[in-house]
């Protein structure tokens, strides 16, 4: 059982780290603000999300796991709203140009 959980952790955390890499590369390589924003949201959702899911089996008890989930949900919510605001700004910038 522990082995399965550990494998799950390793797979999920690796996948999360991969999305961090993908997001950074996207930020470096994508041509404009909108596409870079797209890359960033993948990091917030999938990168952090998969790392949190991977860490759940290792958390101390139910409360610790809940706290981890809370952090992720919080980042999700705020990240989504901030991305909207950034996109608004970027679109207006684009129109003015």
């Amino acid at each position, binding site marked *: 059982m522990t082995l399965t959980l550990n494998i799950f952790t390793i797979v999920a955390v690796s996948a999360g780290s991969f999305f961090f890499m993908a997001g950074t590369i996207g930020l470096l390589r994508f041509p404009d603000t909108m596409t870079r924003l797209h890359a960033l949201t993948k990091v917030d959702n999938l990168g952090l999300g998969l790392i949190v899911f991977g860490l759940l089996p290792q958390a101390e008890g139910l409360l610790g796991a809940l706290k981890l989930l809370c952090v992720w949900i919080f980042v999700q*919510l*705020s990240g989504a709203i901030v991305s909207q*605001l950034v996109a*608004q700004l970027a679109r207006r910038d684009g129109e003015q140009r």
Partner: protein
Amino acid sequence: MTPPFILEIAFVILILAIAVGTLVARAAFTAVLLFMIYGLLIAIAWIRLSAVDVALTEAAIGGGLTGMLLLGAVARLRESEGSGEEPGLPTLLAAGTFCVLVSAALGTLVLSRPEVAPSLAPAVMDNLAQSALGNPVAAVLFVFRAFDTLLEKVVLLLALIGVWSLAPDRVWGGVPGLRLYAEPSSILVFLAQLLPPIGIMIGIYMFWTGASYPGGAFQGGTVLAAMWLLVMIARLQPVPAISLRCVRLLLVVGPVIFVAIGLLGFVFAGAFLAYPPDYAKPLIVIAEATLTLSIGVTLGLLVAGPPDRMQQP
């Protein structure tokens, strides 16, 4: 050389590189952004030094409030910071040598350690049970060195008076010139309605958990200040005039109650800021709760800046 240690070396180099970047970046905006990232990494460094309380404080202040303050300043100075007169090469060389010497001296001083490292940790742990608190750092802040903490709050208030006194005479007592959103969009308003309840809960949690685990009045107060500023920036609540009596009351209620509890110590425990043994915990919690509120209001008004108009816009 273990793998974690190699990682730490890379981490320290990263911190120093960002520090250099902060100082040499051409645009003021980039410099401030780098400084905020620097604050984030310093918070992680404090974790590595096993000082979670300090990490919390640094995360709240270094990245959040200082960042907002400096970003506001950059926006006001935009395009006109100027490059000024860089000092000549001899001055640079002299300053460089001097700073390298200071660094080297500090490094050797800190590392030339005595046989037994001085530590007050045993003394703190011996007396922790009497303090009725479980978090040793909170015990130092609110019991063993309570006078320091009291004076720290006074410093915050003095800084606020200093900030206010920089306002032109004709707007004294007016509304702080916090930069607001020109036209808050509905998404921003939603954010400013969604975040504060969560933030206030986290702030109260920080103060409450601070008795036994890392956290405390200051960390909680910082979160409250951030949420208040968010609500004001989104124009959901007006920025209060600094002459309002309730603002003044909120600013001093924490320190006044702390002093009152301290004075009670003369009567019931024989010394200033001494707590009667049976009531130590409730008294500390009362002091911390009011201090959290006062710190929140003080920090919020510090970031909001000096008054610049008499009426609401």
